C-alpha cells in the first residue's frame, strides 16, 4: 500500500454540507439545512461565475412571479460516489401560472439563508411564458449527472 495525494472525497461532500470553515469570519445564520432558492434572469442580464449573490437587477418580472424566485425542494443531502461529491434539488423548479414576456435564459440557484449567496448559474435557450408554467427539470442525482458536482 502506498500513499497517494488527493483531495479527500469526504471533504468534497462536507463542503456542500457546510461542515468545514476554513475562513476566519465564518458565521452561519442557521444550524439546519439552508433554504435554497431559484430565480430567473433575463437574457440581457450578465450572470456567471463572478456572480456572488442574488440581485433583483436583471431578474424577470411579470404576473405570477415573485421576486427572488421559488424555493427549491431540498430533501436529499449532498453525497458522493467514487471521488465525486454531488447534490441536486429533489424536485423540479416549477413556476406556475406566470406571464414572463421578456425573454429569459438563466436561473440562479442561491442560498437565501446565508445572505442570498450565489451557488450556481444555469443557462438554457431563451424562453417566454404566457399565462403558463415554466418547469426546469433536475438531472439524475448521481456522480455523472447531478446539478452540482465537485470532482
Amino acid at each position, binding site marked *: 500500500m502506498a500513499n497517494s*495525494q488527493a483531495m479527500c472525497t469526504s471533504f468534497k461532500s462536507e463542503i456542500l454540507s457546510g461542515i468545514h470553515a476554513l475562513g476566519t469570519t465564518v458565521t452561519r445564520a442557521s444550524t439546519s439545512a439552508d433554504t435554497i432558492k431559484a430565480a430567473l434572469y433575463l437574457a440581457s442580464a450578465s450572470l456567471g461565475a463572478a456572480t456572488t449573490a442574488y440581485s433583483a437587477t436583471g431578474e424577470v418580472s411579470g404576473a405570477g412571479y415573485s421576486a427572488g424566485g421559488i424555493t427549491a425542494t431540498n430533501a436529499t443531502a449532498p453525497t458522493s460516489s467514487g471521488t465525486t461529491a454531488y447534490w441536486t434539488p429533489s424536485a423540479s423548479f416549477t413556476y406556475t401560472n406566470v406571464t414572463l414576456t421578456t425573454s429569459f435564459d438563466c436561473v440562479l440557484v442561491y442560498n437565501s439563508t446565508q445572505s442570498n449567496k450565489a451557488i450556481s448559474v444555469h443557462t438554457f435557450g431563451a*424562453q417566454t411564458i*404566457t399565462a403558463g408554467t415554466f418547469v426546469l*427539470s433536475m*438531472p439524475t442525482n448521481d456522480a455523472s449527472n447531478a*446539478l452540482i458536482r465537485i470532482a
Partner: protein
Amino acid sequence: MIVNTTKGEMDDSLLEKREGAIDNDNENTTWVEYWLAGELVHRSAHVRLKKPIISISETGSF
C-alpha cells in the same frame, strides 16, 4: 382540456395548438402554445438541463 389563458380558462377545442422542441448538448426543451384568432394566449415551457456544473478539485504539492 381546459387551458389557462390570458383570457381566462378556455377549452382547448377553441384554440390553435402549436408545439415545439429543442434538443442540444445543453438542454432538452419542449414548449406548447395556444393561439386564439392570431393572438398568443398561452405559452408553457419545460426545460431539462443536461449539463451539470462541475468543479474540479486539485491539491497542491510541496
